[in-house]
């Protein structure tokens, strides 16, 4: 190799990112800056969208080797944790450690609202198929309506990894937009009188029930839908750390530094998958439209089922808590509170809305489980290929050895 001044200068110039910056890269750098702007100044789920945006920025600097597809690169390494479905369950353990299922236990019927809101998932699924996506892709897009980041990432990386980036970005963006998306739908579907309904105070729940609950949910739901065990099981383990009262150390770690570390890795990995190739496609636009549809229908589904429960209980349920069934904890519950107190300033719905709100998390995990039961095994070959990818770097060695053998045998 030559190190003359001229040769070196040429080398440096030809290896700058500018030398191979294409239009797509430049657009993606702008997209990254928009995400950062939304995260920082508009407070759109900043804990996720800031590192996602920064990961996108790094991935789209040409020759930086930071895209999720750059084998041997730093973010490719983190991306393995998404690809092999390790990071989303760990985030869910932290979510479980942060979640109080008390309001749900005090009013278990609100689980139905968490179920009803899943209608958003399936209307979107049909819409996605109508727009030309295949069933696996449509499922991964539909789950945006579950309003649950880790669940969306888990299902996308399992069923449609090539759509991971737009699905994750849409899911987190719309979760932040819940205070804008939901109120008009809620007001349109309810009467002033319904919105003014005051609900009875929740009954207290014994600590024993709170401890037994995560174990029972795990056994019941995971036996019926085993595919969702990594997600739902870890959620419930985190909650057991919280409620058992004997694992304070583990609880504290799970809900603080462990979830923070995993969030950083997960968000950077998702961001690193936002390359021009995968993101600047007509599919991304479709996903953004479908995601909005998903959130809207989910909200409507929850509110309408809330009206049904209102009727059936003789007016003891305020339909506004139904919209909280989309999950997006605790934002959606706060929206219920807000719309309720707008109708009657003495109406406190927050705790009542927390029931459907956490029910929505379980509901979309169950919806994810149904998808895995239906489509999970049919991607087994793809998953295999994915694993081979990771450690596929050895293959050249093996192949070289084999070709040596072949050469040797030829003589």
């Amino acid at each position: 190799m030559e190190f003359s001044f001229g040769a070196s200068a040429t080398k440096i110039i030809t290896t700058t990112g500018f030398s191979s910056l294409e239009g797509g890269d430049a657009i993606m750098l702008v997209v990254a800056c928009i995400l950062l702007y939304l995260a920082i100044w508009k407070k759109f789920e900043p804990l996720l969208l800031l590192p996602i945006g920064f990961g996108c920025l790094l991935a789209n600097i040409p020759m930086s080797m930071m895209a999720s597809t750059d084998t041997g690169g730093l973010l490719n390494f983190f991306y393995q944790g998404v690809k092999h479905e390790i990071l989303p369950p760990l985030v869910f353990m932290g979510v479980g450690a942060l979640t109080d299922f008390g309001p749900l236990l005090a009013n278990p019927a609100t689980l139905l609202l968490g179920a009803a809101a899943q209608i958003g998932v399936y209307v979107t699924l049909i819409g996605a198929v109508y727009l030309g996506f295949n069933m696996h892709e449509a499922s991964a897009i539909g789950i945006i309506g579950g309003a649950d980041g880790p669940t969306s990432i888990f299902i996308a990386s399992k069923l449609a990894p090539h759509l991971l980036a737009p699905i994750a970005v849409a899911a987190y963006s719309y979760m932040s937009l819940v205070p804008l998306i939901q109120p008009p739908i809620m007001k349109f579907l309810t009467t002033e009188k319904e919105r003014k309904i005051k609900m009875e105070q929740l009954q207290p729940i014994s600590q024993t029930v709170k401890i037994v609950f995560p174990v029972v949910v795990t056994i019941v739901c995971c036996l019926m839908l085993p595919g969702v065990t990594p997600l739902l099981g870890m959620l419930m383990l985190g909650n057991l750390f919280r409620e058992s009262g004997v694992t304070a150390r583990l609880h504290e770690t799970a809900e603080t530094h462990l979830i923070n570390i995993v969030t950083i890795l997960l968000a950077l990995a998702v961001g690193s998958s936002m390359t021009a190739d995968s993101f600047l496609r007509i599919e991304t636009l479709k996903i953004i439209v479908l995601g909005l549809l998903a959130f809207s229908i989910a909200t409507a589904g929850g509110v309408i089922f809330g009206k049904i429960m209102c009727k059936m209980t003789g007016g003891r349920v305020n339909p506004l808590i139904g919209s909280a069934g989309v999950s997006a904890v605790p934002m959606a519950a706060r929206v219920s509170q807000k719309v309720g107190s707008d109708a009657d300033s003495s109406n406190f719905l927050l705790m009542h809305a927390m029931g459907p709100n956490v029910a929505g998390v379980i509901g979309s995990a169950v919806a994810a489980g149904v998808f895995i039961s239906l489509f999970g095994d049919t991607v087994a070959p793809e998953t295999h290929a994915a694993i081979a990818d990771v450690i596929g770097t050895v293959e050249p060695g093996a192949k070289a050895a084999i070709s040596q053998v072949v050469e040797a045998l030829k003589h």
Partner: protein
Amino acid sequence: MEASISAAASVSVLAMAVIFAVLVILIFTIQALVKLMPYKAPPPAPPRLQTAASENSDQDDHVAAITATLAMHMGKSPSEFRIVNISQR
């Protein structure tokens, strides 16, 4: 296309049915749990704020908790310092 939309529709109906089924089972389980293990109100706390003494004893708990917290942060023994003046609301 027609075919796949009808497939999507049947998957959707089925899935909603499964979700409701699973969650209804969960509702009944929770109701059974709550019935089996009912909430018991803790024994009434000794009357507070009535006498200076009882308030103090109560405050002592909080002071102890804060003291321990700070001791941990300061890397010193809790016996080395004392916090006063944290009054009960």
